[in-house]
Structures are given as structure tokens and as C-alpha cells.
């Protein structure tokens, strides 16, 4: 078969502020044949996105393609004048970005944006192009394909928008499709429908594709070949099967080792011995303005244990952490910290209560004040809660840095001088500086590379053993929670649907939603996608989207087992099951989903 794209000895350089050009991509060569999907994998900073952009002859502002050839359909596009190169984009090659929400213009109807590129290239008039787009919507399995183009971007769900983004990229019938982390920002249940749509349309149209991702399990589902990158250089290249099962290079093995097994394959932790709760959230209802996010949520965090809170985006996980921290006022219910009821607002809480419960935010980049040195960031809570000053304070800052495995010298640096993983460690050290009884971890590993995230999880575990601190660990990553949490709370649309010891939650019987979540976590097994996408659960789940604040069971509209007349009208009561498990579902125990 012929090569659609050949890149020979590509060098890309980037210029940091005030500096000289430094190499980002150092001599990478690759080729993609017709109908083939090549995956580029690597950690952030490995140059995978830069290479995928170079395949269009494009370099981001501040970067330049310094050397190398990019052959697309038998032409060296680097030799073309800029105008001709521009004409190729959206015609012979198209690009799907990570965030569809950021790529669509919110002020224009979807249909108009989908046909914009072919219309610009003169591929036909608006009517024929719209008809072709409707055909694409149908192939991508979008609901009501005839009318979806009439909608505005905010009127469809995130997963649908990502598929519409694919429709936009495919509308010009490209020979090469570049997908840059297209499912990374999506929830696992949504990821399945999008992955399947992408894979089917690539097969159907015989398009060549470059798939950029850091998620090996996703790669196993879509790629024919894999190119492993590190620091802008090729580490290893080979067929998917070989890379996944017989990696030759050590770095590839490190990447594979950082992948956590699917939650039902983890040896779950036994429930911790009963301890007095350090946080007790009782029947809390909270929200913003007229919107109710959490309704009637009760969660206990026993001392020196880990309680995982899982659920999809928008389910109220972060709101729960903010309510406990006093940042978002609650409307009903109480938060009890270490046996004493806490004031709803942070400003009404005494310092001793604030000290015991610290919060760590998801984005380490924005959680540290860029104008303060690490020493000041860590020193402030020491001063604030314990009155430490001067030499004593500096000594404690150094100890804290060592506690999170960072060199003492980092105290004099600014956050901008640290990598993402290092920032997250400082973020954690700031919480530890207060010497708290419990730390609220809000998606602390979600923005990190798998290898770095694994390191942070290990650190959290060792700190728990060393200091006896408890965590409320909020995450959408079930595998991490399963391997780490003593107890698990599953949230859906602001309600607790299942909770109990992690062993009981991750083994049958399941709440139908827990079952869906578990089965949606991609496995590093080729062909997993085909098995899971065709189940009745997956189909029911992708047919509708989350409704917050409706009547009845919130999951009823996406549940394959919903009992009509009951689930959609009456909210299920929380039932106690053997093994300390609590499930909110109308189904009789015998009919709850197993394995």
C-alpha cells in the first residue's frame, strides 16, 4: 500500500521567552499508509503534538520546523509556498483537537461550522455539503442526524460535540486525519461512544490517521502501529500487538508499568478497622444560585483512612470537597469535623478547625501563586497555624520538601521553575504544613502523566503510613481509586448511589451505574472496545445524558435495567447490603448486575 504521509528526519525548535531556539523534536521519521492508524504515545513534553502539527506543515507560534521533509500524497509540503500549504489543510489533511468545546464557535450553529472548510475549498454548495454532513452524523451514530446541525454547540453533550468535531474533520474527505488526544477530556462512559465512532469512521472511509494520546489502553483499541516518543526522539516503533505485549525498550516498559489494571482486576484493600470519623458529612444539600448540585449526601471519612469519591464530571465531586472546606456554603445538613459541627462558611471557622482539614486542588499550575517563592508558599501555613518564624520556619519548610521527595533548595524557586509533578508535590506539602488530620484531594493526579501520577499516588500512600493522615480522594479515575481507597463513594448527579468498603463496591452485586463505570474503563486488550460498546448497558447510557435535579432515580434515563413507572418517578431509598455496602436502587438484590 502507498504511504499517505511520510516524515523524514523532522526537527522542530521552540523558543522560550527571552531565550534561543531549543530543539523540541530531534530527527523523527515516520510514515502512515492508507487506511492505517498510527498512534504517537509519550508523556507531555515528548513532542507528540508538535509532530502531529508538523504533519500539516504547521508549527505553533514561537516554534519552527528547522529541518526535515514532510511528504503528503507524494508532495513535499515543506517546499510549498505558505498559501498552497494552507490550501491543503481542511482538504487533504484535517485535525481534531483535544477539546471540542474550545474548538467550536459558540455563537454559530453546528452545521454551518461543520461544512465551513469544504465550502471554503469550493467542494460544493451549502445544500449538498449539508446533505453529506447529515450522512456523516448518521455514520457517527449521533442522535437525530437530520436536525443536530441546527443546534448550537452548548445544546449537545460533550461526547456528541467531540463526535461532531470528527464530522467537521471528515466533512472534506481528508486523506489524513490527525486526532490530538480526542478523548482525554471525556468521561469514561462517553469515551466509549466517541472511540467507537472514530474507529468506525476511519475504517469506513479508509482514511489514514495519526492518533496522539498518552493512554495506552485507548491506543490498544484504535491503533494499527505505535510510535513511542520521549523528549522528541523515537524510542520504539512497531505493530500495536508487539508494543503492548513484547516491548523492546526499557522506556516503553516503564510506560506500561505505570498503567494501572482495570478496577475489577485489582486486589482490593480490606476495610480499615472502625475509627472515629474525622469528616462526617450528614445529609448535605448544596449548590450555586438556583442550581442544586448535591442533594442529601452523607459521607464519613474515618481517621487515617482513604475514602475515594468517584463519578463523572458534573456529578458534584468537587462541590463536595468545597462544601467540606467551607468554600461553598451548604443549604441543608451538617459537616462535622473531628466530632465538632463546623460552621458552613470558612470565615466563621476557628483556626484549629481549619488546620485539621486541608484541601489540595486539581490544577497544580493555578493552585500555587506564581509570584511567591516555594519557601513562602510553604512557610505561610506554618506561620499562620503554628506561629513559626525565621530559622525555625525555614527548617520546617526544608523538612516538608524532603517529605514530598523534593530537594531542600527548591525553597528559593518560583512555581514557574517546577514541572507539573513537582508543583503537585509542593501543593501537597502546603497541605501537610498545617499538620492536618485529613486532606481533601480534588483530582490531584488527573492533570499529570501516568508515570508522574503513579509517583504522586505512592507518595500519598507513604505519607498516610508515616503521618496517619486521612484522605478524601476525589477522582474520575476508577483504577487509581480502586488500588488506593479503603472505602468508596459513587456519586451520580449529586447523589450517592453506592458506598461501602472498596472491596464490596468493586465486586458484585453492583449498582447499575457502578457497573457501567467499571465496564467503561478501557482495558489494555485489543478488541475490548468491540465487546463493551455493544452491550445493552453501553447503548442505554449513550442514548441520554445526565439530568440534574429531576424526579425519581437520577440514573433512570440511562439505565438498561430501569423499571418504568418506578425508577422515573420515585427516588430510591438507600439500602444496606451485606458487607457494609449501601446501594440506592429499586432493583431487588437478586436482580442487581453481577460481574
Amino acid at each position, binding site marked *: 500500500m502507498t504511504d499517505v504521509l511520510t516524515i523524514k528526519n523532522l526537527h522542530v525548535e*521552540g*523558543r*522560550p*521567552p*527571552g*531565550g534561543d531556539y*531549543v530543539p523540541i523534536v530531534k530527527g523523527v521519521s515516520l510514515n502512515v499508509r492508507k487506511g492505517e492508524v498510527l498512534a504517537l504515545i509519550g508523556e*507531555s*513534553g515528548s513532542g507528540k503534538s508538535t509532530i502531529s502539527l508538523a504533519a500539516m506543515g504547521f508549527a*505553533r*507560534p*514561537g*516554534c519552527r520546523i528547522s529541518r526535515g521533509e514532510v511528504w503528503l500524497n507524494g508532495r513535499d509540503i515543506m517546499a510549498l509556498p505558505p498559501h498552497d500549504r494552507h490550501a491543503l489543510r481542511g482538504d487533504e489533511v484535517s485535525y481534531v483537537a483535544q477539546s471540542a468545546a474550545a474548538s467550536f464557535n459558540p455563537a454559530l450553529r453546528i452545521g454551518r461550522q461543520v461544512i465551513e472548510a469544504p465550502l471554503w475549498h469550493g467542494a460544493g454548495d451549502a445544500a449538498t455539503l449539508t446533505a453529506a454532513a447529515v450522512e456523516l452524523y448518521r455514520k457517527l451514530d449521533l442522535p437525530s442526524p437530520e436536525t443536530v446541525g441546527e443546534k448550537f454547540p452548548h445544546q449537545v453533550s460533550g461526547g456528541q460535540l467531540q463526535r461532531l468535531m470528527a464530522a467537521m474533520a471528515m466533512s472534506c474527505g481528508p486523506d489524513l486525519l490527525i486526532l490530538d488526544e480526542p478523548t482525554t477530556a471525556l468521561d469514561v462512559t462517553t469515551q466509549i461512544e466517541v472511540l467507537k465512532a472514530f474507529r468506525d469512521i476511519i475504517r469506513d472511509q479508509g482514511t489514514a490517521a495519526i492518533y496522539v494520546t498518552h493512554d495506552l489502553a485507548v491506543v490498544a483499541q484504535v491503533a494499527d502501529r505505535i510510535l513511542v516518543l520521549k523528549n522528541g526522539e523515537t524510542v520504539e516503533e512497531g505493530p500495536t500487538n508487539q508494543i503492548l505485549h513484547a516491548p523492546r525498550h526499557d522506556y516503553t516498559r516503564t510506560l506500561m508499568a505505570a498503567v494501572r489494571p482495570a478496577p475489577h482486576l485489582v486486589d482490593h484493600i480490606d476495610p480499615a478497622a472502625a475509627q472515629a470519623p474525622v469528616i462526617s458529612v450528614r445529609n448535605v444539600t448544596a449548590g450555586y444560585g438556583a442550581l442544586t448540585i448535591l442533594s442529601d449526601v452523607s459521607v464519613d471519612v474515618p481517621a487515617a483512612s482513604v475514602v475515594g469519591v468517584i463519578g463523572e464530571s458534573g456529578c458534584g465531586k468537587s462541590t463536595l470537597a468545597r462544601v467540606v*472546606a*467551607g*468554600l461553598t456554603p451548604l443549604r441543608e445538613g451538617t459537616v462535622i469535623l473531628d466530632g465538632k459541627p463546623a460552621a458552613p462558611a*470558612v*470565615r466563621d*471557622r476557628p*483556626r484549629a478547625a*481549619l488546620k485539621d482539614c*486541608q*484541601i489540595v*486542588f*486539581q*490544577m497544580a499550575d*493555578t*493552585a*500555587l*501563586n*506564581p*509570584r*511567591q517563592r516555594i519557601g513562602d508558599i510553604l512557610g*505561610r*501555613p506554618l506561620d*499562620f497555624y503554628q506561629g513559626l518564624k525565621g530559622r525555625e520556619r525555614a527548617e520546617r519548610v526544608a523538612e516538608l520538601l524532603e517529605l514530598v521527595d523534593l530537594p531542600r533548595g527548591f525553597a528559593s524557586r*518560583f512555581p*514557574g*521553575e*517546577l*514541572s507539573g509533578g513537582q508543583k503537585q508535590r509542593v501543593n501537597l506539602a*502546603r497541605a501537610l504544613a*498545617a499538620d492536618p488530620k485529613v486532606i481533601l484531594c480534588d483530582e490531584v493526579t488527573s492533570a499529570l502523566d501516568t508515570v508522574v501520577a503513579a509517583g504522586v499516588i505512592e507518595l500519598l500512600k507513604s505519607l498516610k503510613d508515616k503521618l496517619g493522615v486521612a484522605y478524601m480522594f476525589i477522582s474520575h479515575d476508577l483504577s487509581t481509586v480502586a488500588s488506593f481507597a479503603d472505602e468508596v463513594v459513587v456519586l451520580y448527579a449529586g447523589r450517592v448511589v453506592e458506598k461501602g468498603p472498596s472491596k464490596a463496591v468493586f465486586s458484585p452485586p453492583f449498582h447499575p451505574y457502578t457497573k457501567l463505570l467499571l465496564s467503561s474503563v478501557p482495558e489494555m486488550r485489543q478488541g475490548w472496545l468491540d465487546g463493551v460498546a455493544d452491550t445493552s448497558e453501553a447503548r442505554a447510557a449513550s442514548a441520554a445524558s445526565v439530568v440534574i435535579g429531576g424526579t425519581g432515580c437520577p440514573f433512570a434515563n440511562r439505565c438498561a435495567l430501569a423499571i418504568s413507572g418506578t425508577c422515573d418517578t420515585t427516588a430510591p431509598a438507600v439500602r444496606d447490603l451485606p458487607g457494609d455496602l449501601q446501594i440506592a436502587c429499586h432493583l431487588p438484590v437478586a436482580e442487581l448486575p453481577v460481574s
Partner: protein
Amino acid sequence: MSDVSDHGAPRASVFAGLRLTWTAGLAGAILLFWLVLALFGPWIAPHGEAEIISGTTFAPIGEGGLLGTDKLGRDVFSRLIYGVRTTMLLALITTLISFAFGVTLGFAAAILKGWFDVVISRIVEAFMAFPSTLLALVVIGAFGTSITVLVLTVGLVLSTGVFRVSRALGYDIGVMDFVEAARARGEGTWWILTREILPNSMAPLIAEFGLRFTFSILFLSGLSFLGLGVQEPAADWGLMVQENVGGLFLGSSAALIPAACIASLTVSMNLLVDWFQQRQQGETVLEKIDQ
């Protein structure tokens, strides 16, 4: 990552980190020139501020003084040098006043929110609804033409714009995670304002200061031209234009030279602000790429 070398820039030598464009360099040189004249004016100027050196009024360039004489036969060159002092000093004071009011109230509104924000914002909007020159005319007309009234009035009128900018900055930065972290720790409003929000809004505020300074020069010169600003015999560029505008019909450049000086000062300041903003934005764009 190569973060260490990239972000070490602020600690490197000041001049290496500046990365001046040629327009910014030229603008900086012009501003420096005026600043030196303002500081050492009395020693440089060949004649006194109000000294009449010639019987000939509106003498052309080269005759009488270096740049000719004005309507009373005073040296235009000397008055220009004295004028830069008045013009820049008054502009600086009014801009400082506008920032003192605008930034304090703007950040207070952004942090305290609620009724305080509503009341202050509506009052500021009411002031902004008036054309600023008209507003200044009314106030100065009511309280008389003294330097104190002039400076306070212009400062207050300009502070409305500063208020809007600081309030927006305060709202933007106030929802960032590091501010939330400070709130969760239990920090008071004063700490959050001075340690978390203010240091992170310095760059846009410095740019805003430059723009307000420019605007304040134009505003003050305009008022002086209307006879409501600086009063004779003191020298001010706006006033000099007004004094000598009659000479235009006699072919004298005595009114054009101070006008050109006002232009050189304001255009230079604008160019410098442009460069500063581009540099700030450029850095953020490049930081994103470097990831």
C-alpha cells in the same frame, strides 16, 4: 523539563531580559530625554520661566531665542523646558491619585462583592456617563481654578477607568485556585488582596498606568488650553499652545512646538506600553507552547 532555564529570565540581567524593539527603544529614549529636562530644567534653560528676553513678539526660530519668542517676547525654548516639569509632574500626581482611588475601590468591590460592589459600580458608571471634559469643566467652574482643584478633579475623573480595570482584574484573579487555597486556609481579606491578588495584577496595572499617564497629559493640556488649568506666568505645554495660538496667523511656530512636544511625550508613552503588553502576552503564549 527545561523549565528552569526558561523561567530563570526574571532573575537575569535587567537589560538582557528587556528585549526592546526599536520603537520601544526610541520611545524610551525620548521619555528619558524629557525626564532629564524635567529634573535639571532650571540649570539647562538659558532664560527664566517668565523672563522677557526680546521686544519682538512671535520672533521666528533662531531669532531672539533658540526656538523664537512667544506673544510676550519670552524665550519659547526656556518655557518648554520649564513646561515639561509642570506637565509631567501634574500628570504623574493625577495618575497616582486616580490609581489610589481606582485600585483600592476596584479591588475592594471585587473582593467584598455584594452591595458594596453594586453601589460603587453604579456611582462610577454614573460618572462615566458624563463626557469627562464636561465633568471637569463643571467641577473646576464650581470650585475655581487652583492647582489642587485641578489635580484632584482630573485624578477622580480618570479613576473611573482605573476602577473598572482593577475590579475586572480582581474578579479574574479572585477565583483562581491559589486564592481559593488562601481562603480555605482562613486568610483575611487584607492578606488575599496584598499578597495574592495585587502581585499577580502588577503587569496589567503597569500598562494601565502608562495609558492613564498619557491620557492625563492630554487632559491637563486640554484644560490648560481652555484656560482652566495651569495659570500664567507658569509654563505648561497646553497653556503655551493656548497663549500662542494667535501667532499661527503671523507664521509663528510658538504654538506648534509645544503641541509637537505633547505629541512626542504621549506617543512615546503609548509605544512603550504597547511593547510592555506585547512582551507580557508573548511570554504567556510561549509558556504555553513550551509545555
